[in-house]
């Protein structure tokens, strides 16, 4: 019972050791999570800078701010950095790394040194990409389609492919660590049905990481081989087949969108439960829907290829299967909404982000149905409709979930509270800015504006101006948390062990936790989300 001692003086993972060396050689999953948080934040703002350049160029129909080649390098840099170095790792590597061992009542992940290795691989891949971008760039789009990427592009395809290849192993190692930890290291009494839904989501994500990532890694190697040695794999001039690349690439890269969204869905389950003070409605359905998404997600890849020159019958099958992946996503949304029924709801910042997630993911998910529908997809694929759709899911979904989670667990990670007022303002600004940026793009897409265009017919200008204006607001919505969260590290209110009075093992240890998470291994003799045992309502802050 450390009642009198100030939290700063308590031994925790942050003050256990000091100095750069203690961070760079750490095997503590929490410190690795912090390393990831810092580096991923840097990559996010690099990617965001490129998004800003894209939006500025598209303010006017003419290509005036930069050259065509520069623009192609800018949107490729935006895509590569955001997909491989932000969206894929962000929730698993930051929140997952920090929380998975604590939530299962373990001292660390199963393979702490592999965990550190995964961060180093991420950094090597990331620095290689930054190097590529600063020394000539790459202009293939993040999708690396051959034969453009292998025979025609005059940019640094090999290095960029290598960077994504290396980062892929970081992802595989994280997935491996999570699967083994969740299987083997759960605290006594912590059965599968007592696991938080965040853990179920991380588990499903890890399965995709392990099964999918090697395929894209091999595919990138094949691209490198064709480009460097002219081995005929994808280029018809060399006897290859360009559609083979697309099948291999999307076999990973479609499930990869579930690598991005599933962990955020896990976060949303935690947030809605905590701020409604209720067990998640239909716990088992939400848990199994994560697994269902991981499994069905592997069977729908060719819906990216309906106009690529594939057989009509293959297209029919992939369209049909794609609708089925909509079902588990719908189940989640309905259950989250139903969880609020007869709850006791408060509206702190994390809950606002959860609402934002629900609102944006609903639109992102429903517009996915348009793209699964063959006759409509033929018209809107490769237009801004697709751009709008995946930003609603990726940015609206993933980033909203991540920011909600960061605010929710900030007191646990840092031992400080964030400023609530500014948190709410930023959540609102982000939501408004997001919609203004991306909603006009649905209309642009149906009008027929193709993606990856740096000049466009003048009738598309008004909608592009709206989008650029929205992006500015969205940028403010992302900069605000950066500022006040950094501020809170020093000036934020000192957090109690359980400031939200929330259920879950992470709230039963100190804030910040000690190096080995718990002084004694917890014994779980209660159900998950046991809000009936946490009757007393916290004092209004």
């Amino acid at each position: 019972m450390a009642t009198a001692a100030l939290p700063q003086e308590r031994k925790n993972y942050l003050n256990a050791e000091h100095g750069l060396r203690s961070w760079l050689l750490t095997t503590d999953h929490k410190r690795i999570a912090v390393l990831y948080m810092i580096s991923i934040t840097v990559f996010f703002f690099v990617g965001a800078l490129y998004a800003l350049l894209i939006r500025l160029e598209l303010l006017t129909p003419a290509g005036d701010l930069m050259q065509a080649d520069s623009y192609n390098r800018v949107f490729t840099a935006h895509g590569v950095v955001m997909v491989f170095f932000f969206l894929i790792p962000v929730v698993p590597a930051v929140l997952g790394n920090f929380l998975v061992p604590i939530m299962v009542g373990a001292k660390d992940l199963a393979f702490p040194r592999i965990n550190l290795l995964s961060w180093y691989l991420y950094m090597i891949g990331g620095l290689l990409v930054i190097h590529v971008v600063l020394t000539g760039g790459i202009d293939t789009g993040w999708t690396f389609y051959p034969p453009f990427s292998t025979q025609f592009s005059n940019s640094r395809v090999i290095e960029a492919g290598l960077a994504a290849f290396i980062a892929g192993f970081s992802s595989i190692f994280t997935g491996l660590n999570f699967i083994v930890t969740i299987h083997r290291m759960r605290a006594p009494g912590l059965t599968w049905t007592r696991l938080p839904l965040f853990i179920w989501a991380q588990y499903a994500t890890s399965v995709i990481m392990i099964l999918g990532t090697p395929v894209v890694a091999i595919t990138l190697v094949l691209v490198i081989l064709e480009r460097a040695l002219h081995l005929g794999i994808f280029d018809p001039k060399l006897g290859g087949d360009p559609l083979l690349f697309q099948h291999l690439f999307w076999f990973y890269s479609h499930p990869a969108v579930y690598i991005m969204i599933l962990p955020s869905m896990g976060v949303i389950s935690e947030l809605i439960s905590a701020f409604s003070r209720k067990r998640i409605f239909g716990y088992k359905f939400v848990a199994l829907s994560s697994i269902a998404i991981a499994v069905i997600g592997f069977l729908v890849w060719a819906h990216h290829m309906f106009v690529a020159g594939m057989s009509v019958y293959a297209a029919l099958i992939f369209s049909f299967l794609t609708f089925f992946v909509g079902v588990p996503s719908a189940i989640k949304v309905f259950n989250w909404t139903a969880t609020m029924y007869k709850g006791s709801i408060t509206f702190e910042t994390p809950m606002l982000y959860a609402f934002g997630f629900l609102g944006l993911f609903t639109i992102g998910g429903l517009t996915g149905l348009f793209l699964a529908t063959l006759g409509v997809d033929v018209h809107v694929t490769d237009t801004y409709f697709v751009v709008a759709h995946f930003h609603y899911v990726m940015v609206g979904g993933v980033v909203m979930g991540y920011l909600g989670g960061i605010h929710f667990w900030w007191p646990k990670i840092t031992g400080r509270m964030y400023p609530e007022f500014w948190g709410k303002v930023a959540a609102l600004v982000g939501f408004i800015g997001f919609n203004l940026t991306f909603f006009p793009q649905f209309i642009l897409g149906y009008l027929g504006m193709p993606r990856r265009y740096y000049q466009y017919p003048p009738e598309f200008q008004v909608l592009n101006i709206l989008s650029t204006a929205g992006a500015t607001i969205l940028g403010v919505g992302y900069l605000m948390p950066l500022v006040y969260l950094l501020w809170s590290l020093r000036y934020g209110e000192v957090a109690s062990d359980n400031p939200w009075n929330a259920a879950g093992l992470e709230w039963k240890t100190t804030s910040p936790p000690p190096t080995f998470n718990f002084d004694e291994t917890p014994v779980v003799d209660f159900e998950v989300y046991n809000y009936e045992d946490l009757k007393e309502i916290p004092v209004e802050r």
Partner: protein
Amino acid sequence: MGSIPIWPQQASNFAPGTDALYLFLVVVSLVMTVLIYTAIIVLASKYRRKPGVHPVQIEGSHVLEITWSVLPMFFFFAFFAWGAWIYFKERTPPQHANEIYVVAKQWMWKIQHPEGVREINELHVPLGANVKLIMTSQDVIHSFFIPAFRIKQDVLPGRYTIMWFRATEPGTYHLFCAEYCGTLHSGMIGSIIVQHPAEYQTWLNGGSSNAPLAQTGEKLFAELGCVSCHRADATGRGPILNGVFGKQVALEDGRTVLADENYIRESILDPGAKVVVGYKPVMPTFQGLITEEQLSALVAYVKTLSPSRPGQPAVAPGTSAPRGKNE
């Protein structure tokens, strides 16, 4: 600038159907969005924290879970079936259509009309006629996209891809390259010009001094020496090509293939890939010896070889159907 456009022009046989399905999707999505948003807002305000009121823990409900899993599926099946029906029509060109060859290259569209007229970045088509595009690329993947027609098809190197349409509204429409293809991707644009048949005929007559495409093909067929083996009677070393187009062909390895544009193309560039039963793989490859445009001409010629008059290649100028009149 001016007012904000929200709906593209409708100018093909596919546009009204695609728009109707799109509208159906918009309405269903709008209803779902309003329902979910309303539920969130109502629940969030009704069950906001009040002093002394405790939350009620609810495990869940199997009835509800099954309901909201199964109900959306009915809509999904409707979307799927309707979308598949449109797609199937888009991918099934009619028997009689004006066949136009398209060669894409970084960063332009080269169009060859069967009458011999050539265009770059412009495609003139007659109103109300079925038009079939036989497309290939000289370099990377491109995509032929006409928003006002609601159709799009990737154009690949090394093979033909096919699309078709029937223009229903005279006017000039955007042609975009929709698959990223390098530096001037956004400059690889053009116009589709839909004209009344009479106007179109005038344009066609004034257009060009080139020989019709199939005649060009016939000339090449002779110049390249194809004719010495591919004779109209059974005396040649190669299979008879008369009437072969559109038929099933039995191969040496026991398979059968449909003799379509891609098969003819492959047989010219990679003759050993699919050898007709009873023949030896003696034909040399023409890979690298002929251009995509010459290849188009050869394919167009082989398609005109009629089975009815053996020994007499039926090279009518143009195609079998009169242009611009098959509405």
